[in-house]
């Protein structure tokens, strides 16, 4: 128990004291996972809408693949992205391995299927005739998509939260493609792993605590968005 209190005290000290290194790590985590989530929202929701609104052969297979993708192990993603970005790899010319961009790429690969899979379920849960009703009110294709997304906003924001939660908390991919380089690619999770492996438990606790507060704040904001503007 002492260790936990010590960790909390240390966390407050690092936060209140605005420790530049910890602040940098925290902001990088937020930036990297936030951007990765944003990319995944665009790609994932785009995919969910495309699959939900169209009939095509092999649709069930695509849905099964999307659902499988929701459980992609971060270390597997890390390995594949590393190979892709390796100097001799197909995307090696980008030269982004061991940079924050590589982590964003890997995290987007992890979050996209989560948002796509949950987003598709959210859209498919709407009454099938709603689509016809919206079209019959004179909606264009674009207006139709917008209204369907708005109608499914509660489960869709839950999908976004799940996507963000998946990437802010993963460590495998970040450490493999980022390398946990101090001042460059060190994020909260990789720093926590490093500190605890060095035996600096109170710092590791402090970082974990900051991670929890960060995850809570982002989700609280999304929950506020989700629950507001709903008439009673």
């Amino acid at each position: 128990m002492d260790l936990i209190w010590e960790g909390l005290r240390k966390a407050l000290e690092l936060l209140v004291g605005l420790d530049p290194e910890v602040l940098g790590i925290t902001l990088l985590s937020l930036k990297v996972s936030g951007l990765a989530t944003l990319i995944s929202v665009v790609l994932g929701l785009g995919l969910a809408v495309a699959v939900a609104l169209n009939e095509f052969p092999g649709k069930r297979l695509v849905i099964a693949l999307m659902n499988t993708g929701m459980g992609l192990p971060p270390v597997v993603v890390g390995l594949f992205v590393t190979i892709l970005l390796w100097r001799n790899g197909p995307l090696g010319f980008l030269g982004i391995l061991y940079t924050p961009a590589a982590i964003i790429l890997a995290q987007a690969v992890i979050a996209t299927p989560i948002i796509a899979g949950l987003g598709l379920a959210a859209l498919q849960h709407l009454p099938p005739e709603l689509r016809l009703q919206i079209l019959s009110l004179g909606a264009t294709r674009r207006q139709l998509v917008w209204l369907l997304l708005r109608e499914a906003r509660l489960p869709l924001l839950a999908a976004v939260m799940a996507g963000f939660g998946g990437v802010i908390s993963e460590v495998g991919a970040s450490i493999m493609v980022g390398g946990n380089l101090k001042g460059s690619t060190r994020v909260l999770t990789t720093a926590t792993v490093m500190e605890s492996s060095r035996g600096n438990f109170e710092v590791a606790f402090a970082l974990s605590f900051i991670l929890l507060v960060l995850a809570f704040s982002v989700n609280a904001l999304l929950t506020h968005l989700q629950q507001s503007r709903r008439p009673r």
Partner: protein
Amino acid sequence: MSAPLLEVRELTVHRGRTPVLDIPSLRVGQGEVLALIGPNGAGKSTLLLTLAALLKPTAGTLMFHGEVLDSEAKRQAFRRRVTMVFQDPLLFDTTVRENIASGLRLHGVAAEERQQRVEATAAQFGIAGLLDRSARHLSGGEAQRTALARAFALRPELLLLDEPFSALDPPTRGGLLEDLGRILADTGTSALLATHDQAEASRLANRLAVMRGGRILQAGALQQVMNHPEDPFVAAFVGMETLLQCTVSAAVEGVLTLALAGHELIAVGEANVGDPILVGIRPEHVTLSLQTDKTSSARNQLPGTVTKVIPWGPFHRVELDCGFDLSTWVTPQSLAELALAPGRPVVAAFKATAVHVVRKGPQGG
């Protein structure tokens, strides 16, 4: 002659390889309210979805004001002038006000006019007091009124209604039917109503089409179809409960004498002596008394015996054996006065004009 509002030609819809709709021709005129009646699975909803340009037919043309809707752009423009209301209200998760405004927003109607139209339409449908309520907390009737107001706010030239009352309880349904009938008449809006209830059809429509198995069996003016069904299925569906296969024994100046199981019926119509003929009698055209009335205008007066008395809403349905089966409706008052019960001998009376010729020729098909 100007083109009808909506017209379809040689329309077919297949689901997979199974044909589900086959409509050689159908027209809806300006200001007309056409009811499509038929059992579940007759293709009423499929026809409405096709007419709403929400379902692409396998083949056939859809014409609006005489113009063929042959491109997606034209179909999209058409959907801004023709609106469908479904059995389920399908409201958006927002206020009643925003729901009614939603179609107007899609059409890009300016805020001021939008607000004015929302309030006017809500008043028409008696939901002005609910505007700021959440659509999630409405009763079935209020929700369907909101859905209808959302459609009417768009001032559609044609309204397609797919069984919009079938999920409502009878008093709610009655009130809404009355309001909708009045609003359709006031605004002169043309409408197509799919229903499996002939009473609903007769309250709103001036034309009737009876569907079965993806085809229209008979279409025409409401009274024409109700009283002169052309086949036994249509007859049964429009409430002509008694169907009798007879033989023409005499035909003099449009008055037919028909032979049936040792009895004679007098009917109005043209036929040749000796021909087989199928006639129908609506139960509401049959009256009961205890003895033959020579002064009555009812030329058919047949003695019979009550076989069954079934309470049926505000009336009782009485089934008789007159040598053939005949049914009628009576009020609880008449039931008591005539002491109707199984085994009671009565006289069934109906006019010659109440015996409708359904089909000439032998029974079958």
